[in-house]
């Protein structure tokens, strides 16, 4: 038994799976022990979940030693490279923070069930597979593991109508988009299967990204099936990242889902889908990048425009943040456009994308964390008016809110600015002047709606709203989130290096 385990770990590459194994083990553990816990001991589930995240993080940290060689395991279906480590750590950090922020939220909502944390860990494991999968099947399964966990989590407040509505909407549209994506994958599989394999030294499975990439390259750009696969895969993933025109679900789901889950969906799910999109664009679709640059640029512009203008009139902060996150997607997509346009833009553009995704997670979770701290029994605290006079009621929460809003808007010296800086720089380097002008000018409406939130928190009278009570865990989360948001703006060097590290592709891909 032990020997078999050792063989599995060392020879078959099971070690590459360790981060995911840890998450799943702890999730199962939570499901087992949840029934033994009294109501007042439910916080134990959160501790278990945090422990799982921690162990998974340790395994991930150990994997860095081999990541430079890009070990690939399980019959070429799992790749551990810096790209995966980078995204994996974003998922783990986001998961940890969401767990911390959930404890009090669930307690107040009286929905303190162990499944919640188990589902969060399952979702996280799914995301890990999305980033590390080097095979269509693994990627799709990862995506579905994540998505199904999220459908349940979005409707976790069973007594709340909005939560139920959000879950159903998310499920229907999510299933639809998964279907489109699966259709695209099946075409890719077909393309891969039709490739003449006699030229290869090693016979790779038909679903392996390298095989398909080669097949796409052979067919060249302009091929109908390749374009069809591109369109369907892109559409499926645009759904997941909530890019226009596939964004309609986002505001409703964001508004209805429990706030920690909103934060989780808007950060982790989006980042994971970006990881998958990037992996596919950089391998399978890289040979035909001339075909998708304009597509991505169009979607990016549409997302920026719609996201920014729709957010202007929202009165619900969660909806406003939903639209604003659509506009952030636009910026990240612009970074991908620049990266694909020229060898010089590749480094800056991808650095920008990675940096942006990293800091986007912190500032967005931060913004939602403030909303979570406002939540009371029966009050969700997500209307603009709920923020009135927050500064008088809780200077700490108001200050934290200001930092995140400034960062989201892209005002230096905060992290959001540096992210936008890299993306604008990459656009200018690659000659996309018009896109750069759009990207820069859209900072202005963004500032307007972010500062509507700030104005309500600082400049309006408090009214009779209750004092927010910030728990120790929330303070801890605020501390981490603020630290990264400020540090990545004032001294971005280590974060830029981290982003650059994620671009080290041992599997042979080296940009242009």
């Amino acid at each position, binding site marked *: 038994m032990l020997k078999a385990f050792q063989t599995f770990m060392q020879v078959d590459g099971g070690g590459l799976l360790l981060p995911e194994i840890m998450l799943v083990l702890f999730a199962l553990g939570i499901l087992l022990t949840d029934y033994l816990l009294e109501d007042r001991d439910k916080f134990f589930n959160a501790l278990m979940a945090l422990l799982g995240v921690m162990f998974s993080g340790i395994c991930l940290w150990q994997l860095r030693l081999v990541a430079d060689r890009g070990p690939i395991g399980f019959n070429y279906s799992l790749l551990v490279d810096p790209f995966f480590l980078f995204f994996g750590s974003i998922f783990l950090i986001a998961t940890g923070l969401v767990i911390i922020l959930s404890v009090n939220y669930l307690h107040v909502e009286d929905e303190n069930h162990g499944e919640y944390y188990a589902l969060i860990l399952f979702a996280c494991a799914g995301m890990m597979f999305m980033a590390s999968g080097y095979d269509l099947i693994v990627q799709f399964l990862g995506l579905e593991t994540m998505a199904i966990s999220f459908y349940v989590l979005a409707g976790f407040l069973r007594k709340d109508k909005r939560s139920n509505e959000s879950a159903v909407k998310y499920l229907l549209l999510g299933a639809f988009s998964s279907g489109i994506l699966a259709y695209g994958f099946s075409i890719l599989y077909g393309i891969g299967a039709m490739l003449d394999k006699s030229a290869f030294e090693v016979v790779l499975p038909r679903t392996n990204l390298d095989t398909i990439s080669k097949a796409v390259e052979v067919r060249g750009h302009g091929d109908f099936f390749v374009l069809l696969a591109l369109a369907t895969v892109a559409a499926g993933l645009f759904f997941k990242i909530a890019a226009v025109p596939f964004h309609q679900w986002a505001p409703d789901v964001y508004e209805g889902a429990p706030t920690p889950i909103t934060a989780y969906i808007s950060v982790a799910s989006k980042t994971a889908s970006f990881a998958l999109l990037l992996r596919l664009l950089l391998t399978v679709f890289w040979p035909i990048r001339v075909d998708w640059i304009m597509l991505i640029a169009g979607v990016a512009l549409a997302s920026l425009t719609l996201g920014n203008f729709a957010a202007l009139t929202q009165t619900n902060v969660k909806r406003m943040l939903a639209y604003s996150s659509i506009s952030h997607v636009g910026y990240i997509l612009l970074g991908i456009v620049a990266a694909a346009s020229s060898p010089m833009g590749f480094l800056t553009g991808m650095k920008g994308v990675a940096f942006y995704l990293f800091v986007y997670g912190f500032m967005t979770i931060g913004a939602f964390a403030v909303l979570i701290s406002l939540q009371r029994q029966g009050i969700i605290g997500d209307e603009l008016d709920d923020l009135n006079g927050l500064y008088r009621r809780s200077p700490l929460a108001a200050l934290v809110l200001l930092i995140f809003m400034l960062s989201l808007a892209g005002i230096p010296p905060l992290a959001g600015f540096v992210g936008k800086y890299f993306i604008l720089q990459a656009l200018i380097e690659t000659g996309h002047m018009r896109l750069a002008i759009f990207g820069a000018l859209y900072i202005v409406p963004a500032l307007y709606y972010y*500062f509507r939130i700030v104005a309500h928190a600082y*400049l309006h009278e408090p009214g009779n709203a209750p004092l927010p009570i910030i728990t120790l865990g929330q303070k801890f989360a605020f501390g981490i989130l603020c630290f990264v948001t400020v540090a990545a703006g004032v001294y971005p060097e280590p974060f830029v290096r981290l982003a650059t590290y994620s671009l080290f592709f041992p599997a042979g891909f080296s940009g242009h």
Partner: protein
Amino acid sequence: MDFYNTHILTVVLFTPLVGALVLLFVPRDSANAHRVIGNLFAFLGLIVSLPLIWRFSLDPGAPRYQFPESADWIPSIGAHYSLGIDGISLLLVILTTFLGAISILSSWSAIKMRTKEYYILFLLLQVGMLGVFMSLDFFLFYMFWEVMLVPMYFLIGVWGSDRRLYAAIKFFLYTLIGSVIMLLGILALYFRAGATTFDMPTLLASASHFDTSSQVLLFWAFFFAFAIKVPMFPFHTWLPDAHTEAPTAGSVILAGVLLKMGTYGFIRFSLPLLPQDPAARHKIVTIMMVISIIGIIYGALVCMMQKDMKKLIAYSSVSHLAFCTLGIFALTPHGLSGSVIQQINHGISTGALFLLIGVLYERRHTRLISEFGGLSTPMPNFAAIYMIASLSSLGLPLLNGFIGEFTILRGTYEVSIRYTAWASFGIVLGAAYLLWLYQRVMFGPVTNPSNEHLADLNAREYATLLPLVILMFWIGIYPKPLFRFLERPVEEIVEQVNPGYYGAERAASPATAPAVAPAPAASGVMDMPGMPGMNMPGMEMPSGNGTAPAHPPDMK
């Protein structure tokens, strides 16, 4: 002390920040402690900045940017923490610390609620403004340029008057539009120069080798940020709102220092970015001068129609700052140095006028002109100081405004008589609206019974106003010390942007060797053939009598 000697700019820059951090730890309800600490650190900021004046070397061999400091900040993009000042920024830095201390003192009794936040934000604002004038790195410059919007937003939004929310966000958005376009300009400059550094002198020097079309584009990319900040004529609409709604001290800083960031930007960035091609440059310069003239006349005419005193002074800033941009784009030494002097003057006189209106507002809680009349009876000293400030603002000889406006007009005269005539007409209008305002508010019988027993100035108000009055007289009577700081940078800038200027002067001077006039398309580098270095005879004497070009004694 040793640290101070080697890092004097850092100390000046971050003294207010230290004050803000100290204030963070003071309990919220001890308002007097906030006032004392706020004033203490603002005053300390002024004290530590004063040694800059006498330590600044006027020796021609000294580097242009003095007190340099540089440290790596973000190596991966080439941004440095690099500070340094030349004569122009020196004057503006001193203006900032000086007006900062005065306006913080003036808010002692005007600000009654949320004193802690007020002083923290004000000190942070000081840091931002000082940073803009000191930065020699584009990235750092942009950071300070943007970061200072946030405290100003709150100063207007929290402590402003009725329409403060609207004015605050309008101010923020307007300035932001210009800033983001400038960011693109900075990035384009950085990319076009193929640079790995954001060092300003390096990047601006390399800009002179670009082709004309990208130089034109770069100029306009930077133009919006500065034109909105100044504000130049079509971009001025944020200013009356922001000035009128801001608390007194906010208006003083807004008019005194913030607007100068725009003119400073024009001098520091836009002039070096002017295209080398004479036709393209002529076109841009003409546009700039024409909108400056429009600004002068339009601002003055709008002032005539104002019912609110503060709004009147706000619009007068549009007119006065248009004088500054006119002087800048005359591209002559007199125009340029006059413009800098006029910026200082405007900070002093308009600052004083805003303080005086603040004094009235604190007593009556209204600023409508129709509410007042005959104030010189209950408040004679107030009326006297108000008179001096008005006269200084309208450019009466022996007061500071005259020096600036006269020098600018002289510089403009060398370029075009027509522009000068229009600008002089603006001075007449300026006298009209300021004196008419004075007449309506101060002279005649006391029409409104609630004005009968208004108290005259108190000691603290004297303390804020008298230094300004002294400076008005000093600059008006003996401005030479100020001009001396400007000679060197002005010369370098004019040499670069208007290479024909000194050539023509030399041709007119008999002492000069028959050197060819420099090619107009010369790239503006100092050691070009036909463009003599600083020590060539005759070069630095445009007026031919052996004094440096910007000396005021020449003109008198």
